[in-house]
């Protein structure tokens, strides 16, 4: 796609010599969409179909009319299997000719909303958004028209959930599907560093080994490779197993400097300075002792079993000038690297952004408070720092006013749940986003919030416990993410098409294409 994409870049231009010499062959991952059902036996359904075995006469009507394959009669079996309720579209089916509940001549079927929905998800990640994400990760496709998941917004009552995309009645221009380009540039500086373009306006956020399993990490980077974008090592060091994917890795330099080495900095095309993170703004990272297993401690060069703190903030940075020295250090170690500066969202986030632009960063990455897998104090998540939805336009407009906007890439993260959130973030002024939780949800996360405790994630995603990690495999994880990314890029392209836009960059800063339900111009 992009002429400077990582795949096509001249390696000599992108990588330092010593990295070239120690470089391992890079693995290609095919961007192939394949059905990839959930890992669990019983997929959670929004609706449940009950069949009264005593009333059912086995006439087969339901089996024949349901286009979704809810009713299953396995070959050689006399009785129906338990209905595959998760395929059912619920009460929306009432208006069709194939509503099995009405068509069953014996009144044997009953449709109810699954009482479990109340226990799944939360205000931000509603059960509908979780189930919809699972569906997309399974099929690789956008949700079918007849679905009734409320996927566009959650129930938080503010921010993204009060913003709507304002489509024109008719697109301003007819655009063919293959004309639409959603790739973005990560280097807008014209400073002689490589022009790196990623095929989709998102990349994967930093999740360290320790906070998530290596299966999760590898699935993330493999999907990023397939989609010519990036994944990030997080703070816990650079696994040897990442090396075949070096070209799609960002490595993080965070305050604890766990596992940061010159050679890991030299391997990658992008280095991210993590000043703060939205989930615990102003507070350090914290890996609980129980998650610091033998393998984690080795990678972090620390003692097994003791809690690991990354202090807040960098103790070598007291000013923007110090930040500049930091950037110079990295540029010196790897002269062809792009720099990303990840900050949280204080009241003066706009100043921070402009400051780091002048210090020489290529990417300003603002991280709001809704994301994160790691342990964070509840009080910090809820109360500290500005919600992302305010921070994006604040930073964007200040960069514009300072004539810096065209020379820096603005990335937003922390709570991006869907391609709708991506479109809204871009319309608010970002170039693209970083995602994290959405990837985990695609891998089966139910947002139980237990990632930090005991043996870690009961769903084998955010854990380093050997017994639990083994329950997920890399092929499955990779496929689920590739599928999700496909669905998202289709969804985003569809949004652009409705606006009559060919490039995602045309949407950047177009707040006129958004309406906010709290204000009057709902059109």
């Amino acid at each position: 796609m992009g002429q400077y994409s990582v795949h096509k870049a001249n390696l000599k231009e992108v990588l330092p010599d010593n990295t070239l010499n120690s470089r391992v062959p890079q693995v290609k991952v095919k961007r192939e969409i394949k059905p990839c059902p959930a890992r669990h036996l019983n997929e959670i359904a929004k609706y449940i179909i009950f069949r009264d075995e005593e009333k059912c006469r086995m006439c087969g009507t339901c089996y024949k009319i349901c286009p979704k394959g809810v009713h299953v009669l396995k070959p050689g079996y006399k009785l129906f299997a338990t209905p595959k309720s998760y395929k059912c579209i619920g009460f929306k089916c009432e208006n069709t000719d194939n509503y099995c509940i009405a068509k069953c001549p014996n009144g044997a079927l009953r449709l109810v909303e699954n009482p479990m929905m109340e226990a799944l998800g939360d205000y931000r990640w509603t059960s509908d958004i979780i189930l919809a994400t699972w569906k997309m990760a399974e099929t690789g496709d956008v949700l079918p028209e007849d679905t009734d998941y409320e996927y566009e917004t959650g129930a938080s009552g503010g921010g993204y959930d009060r913003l709507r995309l304002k489509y024109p009645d008719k697109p301003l221009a007819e655009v063919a599907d293959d004309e639409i380009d959603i790739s973005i540039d990560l280097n807008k500086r014209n400073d002689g560093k490589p022009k790196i373009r990623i095929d989709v306006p998102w990349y994967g956020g930093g999740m360290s080994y320790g906070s998530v399993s290596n299966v999760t990490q590898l699935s993330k980077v493999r999907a990023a490779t397939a989609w010519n974008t990036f994944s990030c090592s997080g703070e816990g060091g650079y696994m040897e197993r990442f090396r075949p994917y070096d070209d799609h890795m960002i490595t993080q330099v965070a305050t604890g400097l766990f596992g940061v080495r010159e050679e890991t900095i030299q391997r990658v095309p992008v280095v991210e300075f993590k000043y703060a993170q939205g989930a615990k703004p102003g507070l350090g990272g914290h890996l609980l002792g129980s998650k610091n297993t033998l393998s984690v401690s080795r990678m972090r060069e620390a003692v097994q079993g003791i809690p690991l703190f990354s202090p807040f903030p960098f103790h070598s940075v007291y000013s923007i000038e110090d930040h500049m020295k930091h950037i110079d250090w990295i540029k010196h170690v790897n002269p062809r690297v792009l720099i990303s500066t990840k900050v949280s969202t204080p009241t003066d986030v706009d100043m921070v952004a402009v400051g780091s632009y002048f210090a020489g960063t290529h990417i300003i990455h603002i991280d709001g408070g809704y994301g994160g897998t790691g342990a964070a104090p509840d009080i910090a998540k809820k109360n500290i720092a500005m919600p992302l939805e305010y921070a994006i336009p604040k930073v964007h407009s200040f960069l514009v006013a300072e004539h810096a906007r065209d020379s820096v890439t603005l990335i937003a993260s922390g709570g991006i749940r869907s391609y709708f959130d991506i479109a809204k973030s871009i319309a608010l002024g970002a170039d693209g986003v970083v995602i994290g939780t959405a990837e985990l949800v695609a891998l089966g996360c139910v947002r139980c919030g237990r990632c930090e405790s005991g043996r870690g994630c009961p769903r084998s995603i955010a854990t380093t416990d050997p017994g639990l990690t083994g329950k997920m495999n890399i092929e499955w994880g990779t496929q689920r993410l590739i599928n999700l990314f496909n669905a998202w890029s289709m969804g985003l392209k569809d949004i652009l098409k409705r606006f009559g836009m060919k490039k995602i960059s045309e949407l950047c800063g177009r707040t006129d294409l958004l309406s906010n339900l709290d204000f009057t111009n709902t059109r």
Partner: protein
Amino acid sequence: MPEKYHIETTHMPPRLPRIGKYGIIDWREDCARCHNCVKKACIYDKYREESKFIKSLDSIHTIYFECMGCFSCVQNCTKGLLCLTVNPEYKKLGNEYWTPEIFRTTWLQAETGKVPVSGAGYRGKFYGPGFDSMWTDMSEIVRPTRDGIHGREYISTSVDIGRKPSFLTFTGDKMTSSLSSLLSVPLPVIFDMTSPYHTLPVLEPSIIEAARKTGLIAIIDSKKWHLIKNYDEKYLSHIAFHLNPDSHDIPQEILNKTRLVEIPDSDHIERHINAIRNINPDIVIAIRLPLTPKSVDRSIELAGMNVEVIHLVADQKGNELDSKKPRFIKDMIRDIHGRLIKDEKRDEVTIIAGGGIGLPEHLAKAVICGADLVSINLPLLIALECRLCDSCKPGDYCPAELDKNIDIEYGAGRMTNLMGAWHWQLVEVMGAMGMREARRLRGDVGRAMFYEELQNEIYGPIFST
């Protein structure tokens, strides 16, 4: 550097079965009796715990199930028989202000004394009424005070109660200003009287013990004097009597040993103050003022009368009293704080704000809005597993069994743990801002963001055209 303030916490498990958020409903019919039943695979071993608990019950009045809500067993059961739901007992806790979530987190803190921590980001509402419509700030680049969180430096949470003179006068080398007394508490919190509704035998003694352990002060209704008659000096410096006009039976020598006293607002406030001063010239005197539409003006008036401390008390949900359209306590404090600054009186009077303070974030936010400290009582009650079911008239059934005898050490221990956790959370919030002193946090609204203001400033220009 002063000695570091530290609250000693010890694990204090609940007396009663926990009311977890989630429960598993088990449709046992049709169970295939699998050899490797998913229940055995629960990584929290909840099913085993449950059956152990049920076996230990002597009467069954609680359905115990404290599931962590991971859906693993639900999704893996061969027959799909399990269903995860939100525990109805949990949903019933409290009311619309004192939400089940407040109970959950308070119980956890009272048990462990630790800061509640979880994974997977923020899951709540974008904003809400009351304290939920403001955020506190953080700063990106180092201020050394951040180190306070990891113990390398000191973040002081102490505040003063009493008047600070604006200037001192000297004649030659001799200071001629008379200094009024001032007392310091290590945390911007004071324990308020419990409502007459909550007449539980162990409450006051536990609260006083917790005040002693934490170095704080508990306001005790002078009517309940009989409960603590035998308390010695060790305790008296942690007690502030609320002197009821109709009960003057606190002996002078006792009043002499306390540092703070509270009297209700009245028309004869100066006379009362003088009467108390005659007994104990060093005592700090607070005026309790219900938060009503009149209290902004009245606070200014009291400050003009050289009152040292005003204790403003809203209703239990933080709302203004006697008003058709009640304002919330945080907005009223901002108002009073602003007016006092305008009248150049702010430093001469201490503002204590009470009512609706249920979480440590409320404490931090109330202080940012202009209170010097807050008063609390319901969190202490909740620490003892109270559910605010509002059925605690004598003789009624208390589901938290607070009518039974509870060991005072235990009760005070739970409250102390809660304050220990609050202290750390205040330090976290202050540390994120790079703030070294709670005294300096007062009224520093520049370190907060308010929903209405962000909407207007950032979204206004974009969306209101």
